[in-house]
């Protein structure tokens, strides 16, 4: 499986690089999906099939769909692609490039010193153990995250509510009431 790990890792890095450098937003998103899929394969080769499946279902299959959904509505054209390209001038790369190289250096040192991070052949981490850990010692954090998500959901529902719909329903109900004077008022 080691060769699969390295292949998937190379694909992930290359695809992610294209996400940043691609001028067409939808194409960039497609590269990001490829990147997430290859990360899923990396998880699988590391002995975490459950995490791999969730990576595909949740990130590649649901969250990225919403991204594509939104980008689709923006009506991108050649003009926006050209503008995006002009923003990606070489001098823009200097800052992020330096920071990235620093991180890469840290990672290389950590791997070279034989830390536990470099271990490809670890024991499989199955769904049961993940569940035990999440709902055992970390149950409080899970509950807090659920609170935050619920709050976000309520706010989104409130913001997205269309008051005109309510007014329209009242008007229709009133009109119905007039047509059937004998009916329930």
């Amino acid at each position, binding site marked *: 499986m080691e060769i699969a790990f390295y292949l998937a890792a190379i694909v992930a890095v290359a695809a992610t690089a294209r996400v940043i450098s691609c001028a067409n937003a*939808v*194409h960039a998103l497609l590269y990001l999906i490829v990147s997430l899929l290859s990360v899923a394969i990396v998880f699988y080769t590391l002995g975490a099939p459950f995490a*791999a499946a969730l990576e595909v*279902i949740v990130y590649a*299959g*649901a969250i990225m*769909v919403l991204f*594509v959904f939104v980008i689709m*509505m923006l009506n991108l054209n050649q003009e926006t692609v050209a503008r995006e390209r002009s923003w990606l001038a070489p001098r823009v790369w200097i800052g992020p490039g330096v920071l990235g190289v620093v991180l890469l250096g840290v990672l290389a040192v950590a791997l070279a010193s034989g830390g536990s991070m470099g271990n490809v052949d670890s024991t499989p981490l*199955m769904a049961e153990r993940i569940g035990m850990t999440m709902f055992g010692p970390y149950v409080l954090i899970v509950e807090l995250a659920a609170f935050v998500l619920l709050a976000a959901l309520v706010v989104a529902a409130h913001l997205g509510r269309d008051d005109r719909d309510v007014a329209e329903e009242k008007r229709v109900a009133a009109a119905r009431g007039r047509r059937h004077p004998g009916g329930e008022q």
Partner: protein
Amino acid sequence: MFGFSTDTLLDFAFTAFETIAILLAVVISAALLIWVERRLLGVWQDRYGPNRVGPFGILQVAADMIKIFFKEDWIPPFADKAVFVIAPAIIMFTTLMAFAVVPFTETIGVVDLNIGILFVLAMSSLGVYSVILAGWSSDNKYALLGGMRTAAQMISYEVFMGLSLLGVVLLAGSFDLRTIVESQAGMWNVIPQFPAFVIFFIAGIAEIHRAPFDLPEAEQELTAGYHTEYSGMKFGMFFVGEYLGIVLISCLTTVLFFGGWLGPILPGFVWFALKAGFFICFFVLLRAATVRPRYDQLMAFGWKILLPIALVNVAITGAVVVAMA
């Protein structure tokens, strides 16, 4: 590193042969569905359907295939070419990949993944891209609207599909589809998990956007929806992809709720084919007998009815499993 023994080579050859055989069987049965569906619709609408080419008209499939291969394969000049070409391939790829984990009999089946159900869900959630990207890359209002409808419909119904399967997973104690079939030796899952079965089947119809949930391609409002601009074999791939989806959902329903290959007297494969065939015919009957809901009705039905039932089902099943253990 490459010291393969003869046994490994034989194993490899056998697996390759089995995989290709399953692939061919699945694609051929999906292609035959073109004819099956038209004949069955004919029966239910009191007419003949295609009955001219070959015995009972069965060679209609060949005629259709030849026609579609020789049609002009046109890419609109305003389309995003690369994405336009990839989109129909995605639906074929993801649906065929999902068949990899389906156990057809005790011995036939490409692979037994310990995350079998999750793999199927992952593939079906990736299938969304086919329709969305087709709708976007066509650069056509109707296609885009169809793509948007699909995105919302498939993401929503994926949730209910996943939740309905949790009960089955709880009962079997495994994501592996083969283990799930074996756990039904005493009683088919459809009895203790009847609500889950109904939700799974409805969500399955919505996932492959068949009638009555074919809003992404509602011809009265959206011409042909996301595949308006497609022609020739690319259109053919969407077409066959839909039939592959029917076969897949029928096979999964059989495996998850109706005991897969289990059954008395007849060999396992016959039982599997009979059960799956029944659901395939049911898909066609649904198309003949139901009307398309409005888009908001579809969404409201999912989130207000299916979701609560699925959650209650998971809670009750979980409680029973814990109490029995």
